[in-house]
């Protein structure tokens, strides 16, 4: 049997293949040769064969028959064999094969080998693919190696320990004694991996976190040395001394300082120093600054430091490097909720990023812009956002349109502006608007009673231009159906009324029915609109004719509608005016944003609580409220999605069924530490008697950790001349409001 070909040969041969089929053939031939060589139990060439197998595995061909051979290589005495064997094990084996457990003994022996490189190989393999059983067996060996003085092994042992902890979290305590003097090492490799190990332990266990808080001074000292020390050639990357270690330490400081005043206090100085002294001309400097900013925002830093951090982010936004801009936008998005005013200062730069060429940057700038919209800047921002909607990629249009609708609804300065904005969105991005926004828009238009004439006129003009965008067409035909009489009478106050005859309107609507561009849903809308016009227009014959034609339409929905409308004309003509009357103002329900929204309406049942100091209410989960002596508070929790899904909006209604008014009514609420609360102003501070009215107040709760919402409420008011104070706890908000 000739010697198996070398790896290089194989590679060269495969590269000469001109088609995929040729390559497959060559590989199959070679696989057969390798298989027979394995069967012969040939020790000399096993290493070479497995190397070839790994190459073929990378190209995508099955190589599982080599798994056992890898084990044999690991058990060999030669370093070359072991190396390929371990590499093969890492690439071909994983926990799902039972074969991997056979490695455990080999690894154990190799962890105690005399050559450090063999020990290193064993640590590397265990750290990459060790299963939980293997980790349990070998954790002791790893722990021993963590205490060795050999820095090459110590750093590998540290990372291996991280893997062990990830697989078997219960073993974490075992590594605690070894961590005692990890940070006093001089070798940067060991320092780096030790910080990784400490980070992992702190992230997994709050006890460890409090235990390691005492390391903060030591970490600060190491960081200081790194910054202050002069040029050190072995650790230098583009002029900065070991930036990787600096970034790691900053991240660990972030975890240690979060929520703890003393630690945050200890780090303030060094963070300020890093933030001001780091060279920003190269990427490394910016990487360090970025990490510093994230740390400052997370710990309890003083406000001067926070402003410094946001200004650094603002500077990043102006940087030429697009990576830096991307990173800045991402961080600003995270901080915009907590430091809203500081981020507002950079609004113009952020809005400029909307015009960037890079898709990732545009997306982030768009999200951030929506987060920054408020009552003061709505007009200016909307102009920019509408311009962006015009020119952006189709992938963005749906999200942008939904975002604009939400922002307009929240902050619209006037009804006319609101309708104009909606019109603009419908005409520019009409086909990308989400289907569920059509009903919302219709509701909005119905409720703006004084704008009906203006709205219908503008929508009619838009229809004349373009009937391809279905959401626009649907809203327009609905409006024309409802307010067609205002259209033909030329009653518009807001702008120049146009002269339109009934026939022209019917022409447009009939055009929609026959057009190829209209979807079945749109056709349904226009048929109904034509029918409604029968009570508002005088050309009844034409309408009757259209309706009867569609009585034999192929589309079942249209046919059904037409037949029913026909019946309205014939047998039930006396009911027709009442049925086709103008729609009344619709009740406002929670708006549907781009992500799932859940609406819960709180309703109290009539359980009466008779003690004054009842601390909490236990009612069935779907009902939330507070009831006392005829005074009731109902809460409605809304889950508004865009731009921040962590905000729950709760509306409380207070009513009073006693015989005297409650005056000077003040509602206060407190939430647990992980939440943030914002109380908006109440509708009034008098709750009238006999349920004659109610006081409404909106509460916004930020719940970034998605914990169960709990609230303590305190009510103060004056009833029958004497001041009253009530305390209560509300615990049973429905899960949808905080998940």
């Amino acid at each position, binding site marked *: 049997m000739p010697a198996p070909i070398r790896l290089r040969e194989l590679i060269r041969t495969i590269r000469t293949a001109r088609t995929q089929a040729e390559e497959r053939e060559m590989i199959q031939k070679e696989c057969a040769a390798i298989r027979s060589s394995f069967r012969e139990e040939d020790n000399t060439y096993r290493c070479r064969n497995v190397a070839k197998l790994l190459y073929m595995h990378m190209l995508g061909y099955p190589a599982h028959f080599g798994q056992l051979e890898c084990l044999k290589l690991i058990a060999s005495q030669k370093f070359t064999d072991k190396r390929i064997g371990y590499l093969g094990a890492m690439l071909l084996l994983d926990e799902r094969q039972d074969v991997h457990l056979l490695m455990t003994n080999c690894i154990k022996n190799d962890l105690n080998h005399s050559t450090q490189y063999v020990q290193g190989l064993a640590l590397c393999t265990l750290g990459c693919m060790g299963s939980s059983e293997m980790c349990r067996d070998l954790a002791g060996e790893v722990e021993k190696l963590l205490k060795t003085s050999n820095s090459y092994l110590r750093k590998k042992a540290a990372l291996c320990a991280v893997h062990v902890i990830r697989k078997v979290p219960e073993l974490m305590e075992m590594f605690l004694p070894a961590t005692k003097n990890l940070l006093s090492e001089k070798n940067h490799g060991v320092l780096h991996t030790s910080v990784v190990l400490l980070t992992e332990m702190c992230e997994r266990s709050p006890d460890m976190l409090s235990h390691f808080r005492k390391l903060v001074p030591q970490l600060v000292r190491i960081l200081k040395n790194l910054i202050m020390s002069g040029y050190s050639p072995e650790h230098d*990357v583009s002029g900065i001394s070991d930036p990787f270690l600096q970034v790691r330490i900053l991240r660990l400081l972030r975890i240690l300082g979060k929520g703890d005043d003393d630690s945050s206090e200890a780090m303030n100085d060094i963070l300020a120093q890093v933030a001001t002294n780091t060279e920003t001309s190269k990427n490394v400097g910016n990487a360090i600054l970025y990490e510093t900013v994230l740390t400052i925002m997370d710990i309890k830093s003083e406000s001067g430091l926070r402003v410094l951090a946001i200004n650094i982010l603002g500077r990043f936004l102006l940087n030429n490097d697009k990576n830096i801009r991307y990173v800045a936008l991402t961080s600003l998005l995270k901080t915009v909720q907590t430091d809203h005013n500081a981020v507002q200062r950079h609004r113009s730069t952020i809005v400029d990023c909307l015009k960037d060429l890079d898709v990732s940057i545009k997306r982030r700038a768009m999200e951030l812009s929506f987060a920054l919209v408020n009552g003061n800047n709505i007009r200016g921002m909307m102009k920019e956002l509408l311009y962006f909607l015009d020119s952006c990629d189709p992938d963005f249009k749906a999200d942008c349109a939904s975002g604009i609708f939400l922002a307009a609804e929240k902050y619209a300065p006037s009804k006319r502006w609101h309708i104009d904005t909606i019109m603009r969105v419908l005409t520019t991005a009409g086909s990308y608007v989400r289907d569920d926004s059509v009903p919302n828009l219709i509701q909005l238009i119905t409720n703006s009673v004084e704008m009906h004439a203006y709205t219908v006129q503008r929508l009619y003009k838009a229809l004349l231009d373009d009937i391809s965008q279905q959401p626009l067409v649907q809203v327009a035909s609905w409006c024309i159906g409802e307010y067609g009489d205002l259209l033909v009478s030329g009653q518009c106050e807001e702008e120049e009324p146009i002269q339109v005859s009934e026939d022209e309107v019917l022409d447009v609507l009939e055009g929609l029915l026959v057009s190829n561009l209209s979807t079945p849903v749109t056709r349904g809308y226009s048929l109904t609109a034509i029918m409604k016009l029968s009570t508002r227009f005088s050309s009844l014959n034409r309408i009757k004719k259209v309706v009867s034609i569609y009585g034999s339409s192929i589309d079942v929905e249209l046919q059904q509608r037409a037949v029913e409308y026909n019946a309205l004309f014939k047998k039930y003509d006396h009911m027709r005016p009442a049925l086709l009357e103008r729609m009344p103002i619709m009740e406002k329900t929670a708006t549907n944003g781009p992500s799932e929204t859940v609406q819960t309406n709180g309703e109290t049942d009539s359980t009466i609580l008779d003690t004054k100091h009842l601390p909490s209410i236990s009612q069935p989960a779907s009902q939330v409220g507070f009831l006392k002596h005829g005074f009731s508070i109902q809460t409605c929790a809304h889950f508004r999605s865009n731009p921040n899904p962590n905000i729950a909006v709760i509306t409380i209604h207070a009513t009073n069924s006693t015989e005297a008014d409650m005056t000077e009514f003040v509602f206060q609420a407190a939430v647990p530490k992980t939440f943030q609360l914002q109380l908006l102003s109440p509708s009034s501070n008098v709750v009238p008697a006999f349920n004659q009215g109610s006081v409404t107040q909106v509460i916004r709760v930020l719940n970034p950790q998605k914990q169960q919402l709990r609230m303590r409420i305190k009510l103060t008011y004056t009833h029958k001349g004497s001041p009253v104070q009530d305390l209560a706890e509300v615990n049973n908000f429905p899960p949808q409001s905080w998940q």
Partner: protein
Amino acid sequence: MIKAILIFNNHGKPRMSKFYEHYTEDTEQQIIRETFHLVSKRDENVCNFLEGGLLIGGSENKLIYRHYATLYFVFCVDSSESELGILDLIQVFVETLDKCFENVCELDLIFHLDKVHNILAEMVMGGMVLETNMSEIITQVEAQGKMEKSERLQDVFVEFSHQDLLDFYNQMEMIQTQLTR
């Protein structure tokens, strides 16, 4: 944590692939194809960060890549890694390869896949960054290479055959033609 490190060329052919999480062979190949598809669409002057494709974990994970001549170096990481730091790490990796191979080019990676894996093993272990000091990495890699060579020297006279000699001369010729091209 680094989920995967991929090197492929401008046509999508994988030159090295290392996964630090368990996927089946088919999934690994699909991931390579999907990543190539996402990365090759990118223009030259956009930023080097992308959301991961669906197979590798969707928007939880990011792809951080650099394009050098004919090769893409892609690191797929989760949110615990700093994006700018990984960019620097890719740079250090490529510079190390350059030092180890003397002006590295794609052919070096093709014919010395095992060496590339060995160098990477000194830098990243179990999805975490092990060592970033270039001289330290190179020292370790060279020491281990010496160990291998000393083991092989014992065998050289046994294996040396007529066929091997012929191969050796062919190789020399090929290198010469490449140099004089």
